[in-house]
Every structure is written in C-alpha cells, then in structure tokens.
C-alpha cells in the first residue's frame, strides 16, 4: 500500500498573471482514493493537468511510478498508465459505446479495417472485468449521463490506465448515479488495485469516498489529511481559511398571497423542440420555489420564458394577476421582476465594461442618475456603484475595473448587487452559485433569504440539490419539460427526489 505511485516535489506553475500552483509537494500511494479539494481558482485543475501532462510546471519535479517525468504530454502519461475523465465528456454522440471506447486504437482486421465485432467483444469483456455494465451497441446520444461517464472510465481502462483522475465526476449526476459511481470507484481500488484521484468541491462526497484529502487554497497546498480524522466543517475551514457557517438559516414562516402563476407553459428550445411541455406552478409572496432537475430538462427555457426572453408557444404567465404572456423583458421588469441569469457572462454582464457601467444597467434613465433623461450624472452613478460594491462585498480595487477581470464569485456579486437593488417583488434566480467559491456562496444565500424574508416571491433554479434543499420552501422536480413532483421542503429526502428528477415515480422508490 505504501508504494508512491505519483510524487510531486516543489511543483510551481506560473501563468502570466497568476501563480496557480505554489511550491506543492505531495505523494499519492498505490491503491488509494486521493481527493483534492479547494475553492474555484485554488489551483486544483492546474495541479491535475500537471499530473496528466497537459502542461509543464514552471519549476519542480514530477515522478510517476518512481520515474522522473522529463517531457510532459498526455500521450506520455497515457503510456505510463494515467487516465483522465474530464468534467465535460469527450465522446462522439452519434457513435456507439463500443466505437467510442476503442476510438483512436481500434482493433483491426487485415490491418486496415476497423473490426466492429471485435470492438464489441472487447467492451463486453472490459465491462465484465470491471463491473461496469454498458450496452456496447447503444449510441452515446441515447444513454444517460451516468452511462456516458462509465464509458469515459472504460475508455481510460481500455487504454491501460491504472491511475484514474476524475475531474468533478459527480457534478452532472443524480444522487443514485453518484452512489453507483462510488461503488465502481471502490471496486476499482479494492479489488482491481487501481489508484483513483478525485477532484471535487463537494465535501460530503469526499468524506464518503476518499482515503486521504489534499486541501488547496490560493495555489498552495494547505494540508493533507486522513479522511477518517476530519469532518465537513474542518475541511470547509481549511478550504476557505476561516470559519464557514453553512448551517443556520433563519426562515420565518410567511403567509403570502399568490404573486406568480404559470399555466400549461409550452416553450421551444433553440433547436425548435419542445423544452417545456405544459408546465404549471405558482409562487407566493415570501416563498422560495426550488426547481430541482438535471440540467437540460427545461430549466433554462423556463427562466428565459418567464423573463420575456423566449417565446411562449402555449400557456400563460400571470404576474401579480396580470397576464404577462408574451411581454418583452422591459415590460416584465416593469412588473417588478428581477432576474439572475444562469450564465452571467453571456447574459448577465458586459465583461468589457466597468463594474459601474454594469451596475448602471436598468437604471440609466432613472431621474436619480440621469437629468432630463439625457445627461448621465456620473458622480451619482459612481457613488451608487461604490455603495453597492461595499454592500454586496464585491472584492475589487476600484469600481472602474472591467467586470471581466473579476473572479467568478465577484462577477456574480455584481449581477446580484444590481438585480437585488431594484425595487422587486419577484426574483428569477438561476444557478446563483455556479462557479462561485464557498465564502461567496454563504453570502449569496444570505442575500437570497433576506429577499425572501422581505416578501419577495422567488423562483430558484439550481443544479446543486444541496442549494435547493437549503433555501427552498417548496420544491418541484422538472424532468423532460414536465413537472414530475411537488413537495414541501422537509417532506422528501435528496435520495427520493433523485427518482423524480429522472422521471421515475414513487412506486420505484
């Protein structure tokens, strides 16, 4: 157990403006599950890419199986037995599973033609050996994300990997699929003598699966601990560098009237297929309605339709009793709706503009900031921006900094600062903490709860089940454009809700 299969000695990686890895020394033993955790931008990915040979460290040495690495390239790493499963899968959707697995090193018949039958046999035997059930003849586009991930793992095993690097492997999985994956990982390590490195920011998963945990913060290795000896709180504190209170949330009961009603909504996606197939729900004053679901089941289209950015084909949206079906974003906003979009860089910000100009958006014609609807009061605008930067804790040297140069969390705070400062009664919030570090998540959650307690009706869409469960008063599940369940928070467990998120009803629970 104590053979050092990967060892890093004083590894640093300098990018033009960031020191991504600062003098990191660690070793990974053969046959262990090693987790690397850290906030966004802590340098996890850089470290992993160095191990996989995607880039060369600025200084320091890397040893794999006792051998010092001289030339860094993925193909060399694959030869040495390292396999990597990326967060975003690298599969060809229209190929079968077998074709995807053997892609690049296909079995040949007569040295020229790729032998499909042999490929299928190979995949079948791989499946049996590793206990990873797949149908070799199914096409990637027809199988679930969980299966796709299995295919990725099989791909690395086919290439002979005995060290597997998994980058955020559970980000796209349901709780059930996550459990399955963990079983597979345990089997690979315990029975088949593989080594697994797992990169994640979900601390509860780290605790269930790993043997040891390396914690990174701001490019430095803070600590390596035995998983048995720590808990979630200790890890979170190591990651953030201070105490984190993700537990206590004060949600007083508010009895409010209905503010939003959505009836039989049908909306098309960009390809022209129905993304929502008759969705109905309502939101009351002072209530957070969480929408749980695996990404791509109509969530994006739902928020866009409600915000007036996507055409409503059938059905109605009532806001404060007014039929707002077909309203444009301006009219929707005039009804008191604010919107945190799922992709802040595409929709929520102009990254080449200053923080000030991003905060001004939506207020540029207000008398407070604009004389006679013609002359912008730049001093007033600047003061306002400064005030919001302070209030929403945006970490920046100045309000003139371009938004694009801020970190993800601070960009998100700029969006939230702007949208939460409008006089709103309704909030559409989509993936509020995606790519945001723990410290900022805490802050953003507090702001959302504050809005709720002030009496806002809030629609919360998130791919993070933890977030849905932490904030919501009521939860609906969305699967393939339909609402598959509705629950009061507390009536259902995360595990149970997973079945609704995949379209399986209660009988299968």
């Amino acid at each position, binding site marked *: 157990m104590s053979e050092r299969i990967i060892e890093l000695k004083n590894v640093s990686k300098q990018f*033009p*403006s*960031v*020191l991504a890895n600062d003098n990191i020394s660690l070793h990974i033993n053969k046959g262990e599950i090693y987790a690397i955790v850290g906030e966004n931008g802590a340098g996890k990915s850089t470290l992993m890419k160095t191990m996989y040979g995607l880039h060369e460290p600025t200084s320091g040495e890397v040893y794999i199986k006792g051998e010092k690495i001289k030339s860094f390239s993925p193909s060399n790493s694959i030869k040495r037995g390292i396999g990597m499963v990326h967060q975003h899968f690298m599969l060809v959707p229209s190929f079968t599973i077998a074709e995807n697995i053997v892609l690049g090193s296909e079995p040949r018949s007569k040295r020229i033609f790729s032998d499909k039958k042999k490929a299928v046999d190979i995949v079948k035997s791989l499946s049996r050996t590793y206990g990873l059930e797949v149908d070799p003849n199914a096409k990637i586009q027809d199988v679930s994300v969980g299966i796709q991930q299995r295919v990725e793992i099989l791909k690395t095993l086919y290439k002979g990997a005995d060290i597997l690097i998994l980058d955020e492997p559970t980000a796209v999985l349901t709780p059930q699929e996550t459990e399955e994956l963990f079983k597979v990982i345990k089997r690979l390590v315990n029975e088949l003598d593989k080594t697994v490195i797992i990169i994640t920011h979900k601390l509860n998963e780290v605790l269930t699966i790993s043997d040891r945990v390396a914690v990174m913060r*701001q490019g430095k290795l803070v600590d390596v601990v035995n998983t048995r000896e720590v808990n979630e709180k200790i890890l979170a504190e190591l990651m953030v560098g201070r105490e984190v209170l993700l537990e206590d949330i004060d949600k007083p009961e508010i009895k409010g009237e209905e503010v939003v009603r959505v009836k039989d909504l049908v909306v098309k996606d960009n390809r022209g297929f129905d993304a929502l197939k008759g969705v109905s729900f309502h939101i009351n004053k002072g209530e957070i309605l969480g929408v749980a679901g695996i990404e791509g089941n109509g969530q994006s289209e739902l928020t866009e339709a409600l*915000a007036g*950015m996507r055409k409503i084909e059938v059905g109605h949206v009532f806001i404060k009793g007014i039929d707002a079906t077909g309203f*444009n*974003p*301006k009219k*929707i*906003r005039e009804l008191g709706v604010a*919107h945190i*979009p799922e992709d802040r860089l*595409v*929709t*929520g*910000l*102009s*990254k*080449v*503009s*200053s923080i000030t*100009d991003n905060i*001004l*958006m*939506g207020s*540029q*014609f207000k008398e407070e900031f*604009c004389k006679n*609807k*013609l*002359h*912008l009061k730049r001093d007033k605008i600047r003061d306002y921006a400064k005030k919001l930067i302070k209030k929403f804790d945006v970490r920046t*040297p*100045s309000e*003139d*900094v*371009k938004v694009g*140069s801020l970190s993800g969390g601070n960009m998100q705070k700029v969006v939230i600062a702007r949208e939460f400062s409008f006089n709103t009664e309704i909030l559409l919030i989509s993936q509020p903490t995606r790519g945001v570090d723990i410290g900022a998540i805490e802050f953003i959650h507090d702001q959302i709860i504050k809005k709720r307690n002030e009496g806002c009706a809030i629609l919360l869409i998130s791919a993070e089940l933890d977030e849905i469960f932490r904030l919501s008063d009521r939860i609906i599940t969305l699967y393939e454009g339909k609402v598959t369940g509705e629950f009061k928070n507390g009536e259902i467990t995360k595990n149970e809700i997973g079945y609704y998120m995949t379209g399986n009803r209660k009988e299968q629970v």
Partner: protein
Amino acid sequence: MFKKAKDNVEYLISLFLSIFAALLIGALIMLLNGQNPIVGYKALVLGAFGSKYKIATTFAKTVPLILTGLATAISFMSGIFNIGGEGQLYLGAFAAAYIGFTFTNLPVFIAIILAIIASALIGGLYAYFPAVLRVKYEIDEVITTIMLNSVAILFTNYLVNYPFQAAQGKMGGTDMIAEAFKFPKLVKLSKLNTSIFYTAIIAIIIYYLIKKTPFGYNFRIVGENGVFAKYAGINTKRYMILAMVISGALCGIAGAFEVYGVHYRFLQNISKGYAFDGMLVALIVKNNPVGIILMSIFFAMLKTGSNSMEVATGIPSELILVIQSIIILFIAGENGFKKLFKEYRLKRGKLVK
C-alpha cells in the same frame, strides 16, 4: 480609477509605438530607394504645416475624415457594421447638390439647412434598409452595405451623365449650386471653408451623445453584449437600426459639405474613398470621438504632406499608404503589445497573484 487609466495609457503607448514603427519602416524604404528619410519626413511635415495655405489644406482634408470616422464609430460601437459610408456620402452629396442648383432662389440660410437635412435623410435612409434586413432577417449588413456602395456610386454616375448633366458641357458633373450658397473660404485659394465649424459642432454633439447620455451608454452595451442588453430590457433592434441611420446621416452630410465647401457641384468621383479612410481612423482609435479628431488631423497631414514630399524629394506619395497600412497592422497587433507589457511587468515582479 487606476486600472482604467492604466489601460488607456497602455493603449496610447502601443498606438505611439505603432506610429513610430510605421514611420521607421517608411524611413527604411526611403533608404533602400537611396533617399534621405530625414529630408523626406521634413518635406512631409513642412508640406502639411509649412505655411498658412498648407495648414488650411491639411485641415480642409479633416472634414470628411472626421464625419465618416464618427459615422463608423457610432455604428461599430453598437455592434452593427456600416461599410456603406461611401455610397451614403455619394447620395447625400447628390441630394445636397440637387437642392443647391434647383432651388436657387431660396434664402441662403434655409437652403443650406435644407441641403444638410436632405443629405442626412437620404444617407440615413440608405443605411436604414440594410439595418432592417440585418435586424429582422439576419442578412449580413457588412455584405449588403458594401454592395450598396456600388449601387449608389453607379446610380449617381448615371444621374450626372444623363438626367442631370451640366448645362455647360462638363462631363460627369451637375450644374453649379447658387453662388450665394457656397460656403465661404477661410484661407484664400485653399479648400478650407466654414464646413469645418459645422463639423466641429457635429463632433461635439456626437461626443456628447456617445459619452454623456444614456443613449450612448445603450449603444455601447448593445454593441458589447447584445444578449445582456436585451435581458436588461433594452430594445436592441431599435438601437442597432438607429445607430446605422445616424451613421448613414453623418456620411450623407460629409457628402453635402464636399459639394457646398469644395466642389460647388456634384462630381461623379466626388469622394476618393473618404468613408474608407474614416473607417481606418475610427478603427485605429477604437471609436473614441476625441481620438477620431486627432487621428483625422494626422491622416490629413500624411495626405497633404505626401504630395509636397513627392514634389520636393521625389519620394513617391504612395509611400504614405504603406505607412498608413503598417500603423493599422500594428494596431491590429495591439494584444501582442499588451502581452509584452504584461511580461515586462511580470519580470519586474509588479504583478502579484
């Protein structure tokens, strides 16, 4: 504050480096031709600023450059690309000339206002159609506006050679506008006329629009991130069309000024690619209105000076085109300069984290 200032300073440094490098390469070419670059450049500067007349000539050349430069700026910053300035200029010039030689009995003041309005209207209208096609049907405005240039130029060619051919036999030109309508000259014999004052007023208005009003802010955001603008409730289509129309109107006015200030009639080749030069000017200074004025003066200097240079030293005036192109080339490589700055600062250890 400092970040913004730093960006601007870096941009200015790379701009001056580009100009310097271009002049250096120009000097090299002169050397290779066996000419003395110091003599050449001296002749260039003296040719542009050496006398009252020469200064007047240089400044006269800035008028169409500034107007078409501003026209480019307002459309490009809004994310819609008006490459049709040349055509809009021709149509605007013709419309202005038509008023000038048809309604000769009008009071001067009214005639001139009418001519400017007519040129702006026709220029704006000619830009309106490709803008609507772009916004409603996603037909690429770059292509349509480029093609519409030819349509406008050839159409006005037809007009001046057939229906509106000059009475006194001159080919390729209309009749003269009424004597009283001609813009007074500011320096004797030069082409500098009062249109430079009108241009200054227009430049101030456009500057104010772009920099100080919520409309200018909206134009900019629509150009930077249209999805964001739409999400925030801005009618992006309307702003894009408006930007294009203002752009076309400015080009039309540039045409009117050529007629009323310089030629006193419409000529079939009234513009020597002014709109394209204006586009270069705007591109170099990244649509900054003040920058457009300064860069227009620089371009005008190169143009005026190069003729004198050719006469005085025998260095071909085409060399100036080479210099212009090299500046553009370097500016296009601005990111390269930025990287150099970054690495330099990195080496000096000024960038922490």
